[in-house]
């Protein structure tokens, strides 16, 4: 049952990811990306980390995707004004894709020692929201605060960058 679910989710993830970059219309891309993100959230939940699954949906599917869509709309992008890359480039990109995949796969295949197939659980709770919260706010409280600062900075930065230049206005 669970493994079937895993395969279905995986197919959705990969398929929607591929469609994201194959769609000609950026809006479609964004929407396929949302699908992909949702399926990933499904994986998270499957892995029993509900908290991350929720956060993922909120951050990615919610915040980031909204941002992207707004940007796309702001720029008024459509199919016609994107020039496709030449065929050779596409071919090389495909080759690169295969090469990369092969190499990483073979790296993983050779390095079996990073996981054991014999696997036992200790049964303790390690990923409930409660435990996660404790880890996050006890052990990682400083990085946590730093992330807050980072987000603030990113926000200020984004505002500053996208703000229209005053001199430009007058000019």
């Amino acid at each position: 049952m669970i493994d079937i679910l895993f395969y279905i989710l995986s197919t959705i993830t990969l398929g929607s990811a591929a469609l994201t970059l194959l769609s000609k219309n950026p809006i479609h891309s964004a929407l396929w990306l949302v699908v992909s993100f949702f399926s990933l959230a499904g994986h998270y939940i499957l892995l029993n980390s509900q908290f991350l699954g929720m956060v993922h949906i909120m951050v990615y599917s919610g915040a980031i995707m909204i941002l992207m869509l707004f940007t796309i709309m702001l720029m008024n992008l459509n199919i016609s004004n994107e020039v496709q890359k030449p065929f050779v480039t596409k071919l090389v990109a495909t080759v690169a894709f295969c090469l990369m995949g092969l190499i990483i796969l073979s790296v993983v295949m050779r390095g079996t020692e990073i996981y054991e197939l014999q696997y036992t659980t200790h049964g303790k709770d390690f990923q409930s929201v409660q435990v996660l919260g404790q880890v996050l706010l006890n052990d990682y409280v400083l990085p946590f605060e730093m992330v807050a600062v980072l987000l603030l900075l990113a926000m200020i930065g984004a505002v500053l960058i996208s703000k229209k230049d005053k001199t430009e206005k007058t000019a």
Partner: protein
Amino acid sequence: MENVIEIIGIEKYIYLSIILFCIGVFGILFRRNAIIMFMCIEIMLNSANMLLVAFSTYHQDAQGQVFVFFTMAVAAAEVAVGLAILVTIYRNIGSIDIDKLKNLKG
């Protein structure tokens, strides 16, 4: 609840993550639209995230998930700043086609 890894096996997550990552790489090489490339970066980030979560479960340790949390925060920040830059570029040049962005040329 039983551990999913026992049923599915960690290696499948690894393969999934690799393929997802490679799709992201492919997208970046394939497309010229900066926003699509951005999306591909997000896909790559997510493939890493997913692997972290999978191994977190595998090792039964919460730290992996904490890192995913941080990654998300960083990704959010990145997207915010990155899109802001894109908007500015678009405003100045009228395009976000990366092949037209050659100001780096010395």
